[in-house]
């Protein structure tokens, strides 16, 4: 296994005793985890194990789900984001998100990337131009669209380009954390590899948390791996968490062994 870790990374997000209920159904129980700064943390596990729900609880996207109830603490740089005084809008500028299906707005490439900066109040054209170009360069889309990005509708891009555009849109507001919900599952293998390379480049600057169905992807790309599984009561729990190399080569829990060797899921 590759040794990618820097010297003892700090904790970016500390989750303590997180419980999530949707109405009467409990989806996650007693999740405790420390997400390391400028590292890639992969959340793996079978469908319905609550890993996406967990991801969404890190930027409070579950708030909008009717009947959602969240207990416990999620501390971003030591501050509990579920504190009523914590500004959700500001939280989402610090913790950005990339979705499973590429979902650019049906507008120009430029307007897509400029959306976040604009709603932050940046209006100066030269500043926006700068941000758009830099963001497109960071996701390696610049060379493909530099002639047309001001006018070309984002929906005319290929799916893989669209997803890189969505990543550019997310990093345009300079978040500290990027959450990715199966960002490559709608893409072909070549585009998938591009996204993975991109993640390795972005992790120099950003803390990344990725949900993935694909264990090879988790092994290839992540520094840390968290394995989620539902218990007998269909409640999602964190079974094992550790450095990716260790989790895949020397798992401590028998259920992790069974899952990564393909015995279920």
């Amino acid at each position: 296994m590759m040794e990618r870790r820097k010297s003892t990374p700090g904790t970016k997000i500390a989750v303590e005793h997180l419980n999530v209920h949707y109405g009467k159904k409990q989806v996650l129980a007693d999740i405790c985890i420390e997400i390391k700064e400028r590292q890639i943390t992969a959340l793996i596990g079978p469908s319905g194990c609550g890993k996406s729900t967990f991801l969404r609880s890190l930027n409070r996207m579950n708030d909008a789900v009717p009947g959602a109830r969240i207990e416990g603490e999620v501390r971003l740089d030591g501050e509990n984001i579920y504190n009523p005084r914590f500004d959700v809008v500001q939280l989402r500028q610090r913790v950005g998100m990339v979705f499973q299906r590429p979902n650019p707005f049906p507008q120009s490439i430029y307007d897509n990337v400029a959306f976040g900066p604009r709603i932050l109040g940046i209006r100066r054209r030269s500043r926006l131009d700068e941000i758009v170009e830099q963001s497109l360069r960071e996701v390696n889309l610049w060379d493909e669209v530099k002639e047309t990005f001001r006018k070309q509708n984002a929906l005319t891009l290929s799916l893989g380009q669209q997803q890189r555009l969505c990543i550019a849109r997310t990093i345009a507001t300079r978040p500290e954390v990027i959450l990715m919900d199966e960002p490559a599952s709608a893409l072909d293998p070549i585009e998938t590899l591009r996204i993975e390379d991109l993640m390795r480049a972005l992790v120099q600057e950003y803390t990344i948390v990725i949900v993935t169905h694909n264990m090879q992807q988790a092994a290839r790309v992540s520094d840390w791996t968290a394995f989620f599984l539902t218990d007998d009561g269909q409640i999602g729990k964190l079974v094992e968490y550790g450095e990716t190399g260790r989790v895949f080569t020397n798992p401590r829990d028998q259920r992790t062994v069974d899952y990564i060797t393909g015995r279920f899921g």
Partner: protein
Amino acid sequence: MTQRHLIQRLGFIFLGLVGFLVVAPILFVVGSIIWRGAGALTWRFLIEMPHNGMKSGGILPAIVGTLVLTAGVAIVAIPVGVGAAVYLSEYATDNWFTRAIRLAIVNLSSIPSVVYGLFGLGLFVLFLGFGTSILAGALTLAIMTLPVIISTAEEALRAVPAEFRTVSASLGGTKWQGIRYIVLPQALPGILTGVILGLLRAAGETAPILFTVAAFYLPRLPHSPFDETMALPYHLYVISTQVPGMPEGVQNATALVLLALVLTMNLVASIIRSYFRRRREW
């Protein structure tokens, strides 16, 4: 020819006839109005005051009156209607109150227009003391137009994928920013369609303005919102039924002007719609 083919042929002929029956009255009405009205439709007819008990001269005050009333309706009904639609689609939760609002909107759109006229007479003309005036007429027409605007605008807003709102929120947008910068622009063509349909209906209505603004014979242009005014639909009603010995050419030319006005607005609506649609799918 087999029997099956014969039946098919007969079926086509029958369906074609039915289709013709739909188009025929429109062709006949438009054709007969043009045939009998075009002769009387001169440039002077459009820009002159009526003379001689409306039997000669032009219909300028009626044209201006209808345009002013429609503009008044637009000023009142567009912000209120679109605002209500945004509230219903984006903010209101599904409870008995919002369901009651929706039920009210559906019912409002099925109320006969003469009832709106009486309502306007009671509320704006008498109770609020606006008198028979452009203000009272435009407000009455606006209330009649609101259900059309609200329901089409709400539909257009709901057609915008929920995902866009989520993405906007995930980028740190407030709910309002998501609506303002993503949802409303996406829904704009649909909203415009509803608005123009509503305004068309308002421009062509007679009953709501009957008691609230329309003047029988007022050969001058309105000066203030508290003036009465002539208006095309009511003028048409007057010269068709209330004035004996009216030249047929004048009646048909007036109808032609009203028709042209409405069709032009319709055309503008289609152009705006297709422009936005092209821009969106580019």
